[in-house]
């Protein structure tokens, strides 16, 4: 970072300018993404015969979430309760979001409802769903003429 000529004067008129510049860079660095995000954010990973859905759900326990499967739509519903501070506590900062959430995820194929595995790992929910046997692609042999 370029040092300005002013520090010996006891104040630096460019310090604020530099701070503003870095702030602007930070603001625009993520430009182009969606501005409002659905909660929870999800990722989908596609395997050969199964699909994995992961969702970031920090502070949500197993009992707070319900997963429903209908045909090829997976619904993720739940609620995150705000933590009440102990008596005589006052908030200095509240940035975490609370309330109920619901997301419907369209899966790329029909899945077997009996072969669904879901687990929580460090605040990340991972659901693995297996493709329905009847729905799997079949290889077709071409007979020699």
């Amino acid at each position, binding site marked *: 970072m370029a040092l300005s000529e002013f520090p010996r004067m006891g104040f630096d008129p460019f310090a604020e300018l530099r701070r503003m510049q870095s702030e602007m860079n930070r603001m625009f660095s993520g430009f182009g993404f969606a501005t409002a995000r659905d909660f929870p954010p999800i990722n989908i990973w596609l395997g050969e015969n199964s699909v994995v859905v992961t969702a970031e759900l920090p502070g949500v326990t197993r009992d707070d979430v319900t997963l429903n499967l209908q045909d090829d739509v997976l619904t993720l519903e739940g609620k995150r309760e705000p933590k009440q501070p102990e008596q005589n506590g006052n908030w200095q900062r509240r940035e975490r*979001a609370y309330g109920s959430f619901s997301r419907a995820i369209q899966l790329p194929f029909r899945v077997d409802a009996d072969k669904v595995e879901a687990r929580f790992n460090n605040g990340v929910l991972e659901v693995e769903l297996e493709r329905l046997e009847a729905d799997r692609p079949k290889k077709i042999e071409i007979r020699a003429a």
Partner: protein
Amino acid sequence: MTQEVRTADQRTAATTAGSERAVERPVFIPPADIYETRDNIVVLAEMPGVGPDGVDITLERRMLTVRGRHAGSEHTGYPRVYNEYTDGDYERVFTLSENIDRDRIEATLKDGVLHLVLPKAETAKPRKIELKAS
């Protein structure tokens, strides 16, 4: 009526002035709730994907630094087809308003949320001063 959870903005990337990280992985500022009681300052920071051994907390004077290293969630053989979040590390620095008794700090990590209890130092606690009868 229930309130719909919606994070108003995307995740903000942490920046350290003028420097770059050696590891090419995003660093996020974890959203945090902070409340103060008579005896403690409690910090709750969201760090999904961070395991208990990935947390690093330091307190230097009143500067509290919280770092979380993502445990990694590679799904080998499973290409990612839809993406709303990326894994990354977490880093945040707070300047506390009170002196902290650093020997009694308690930190727990549960469901991706760091729970930090910072007891105020005896000297920082409010004290009632009795008036002596003259």
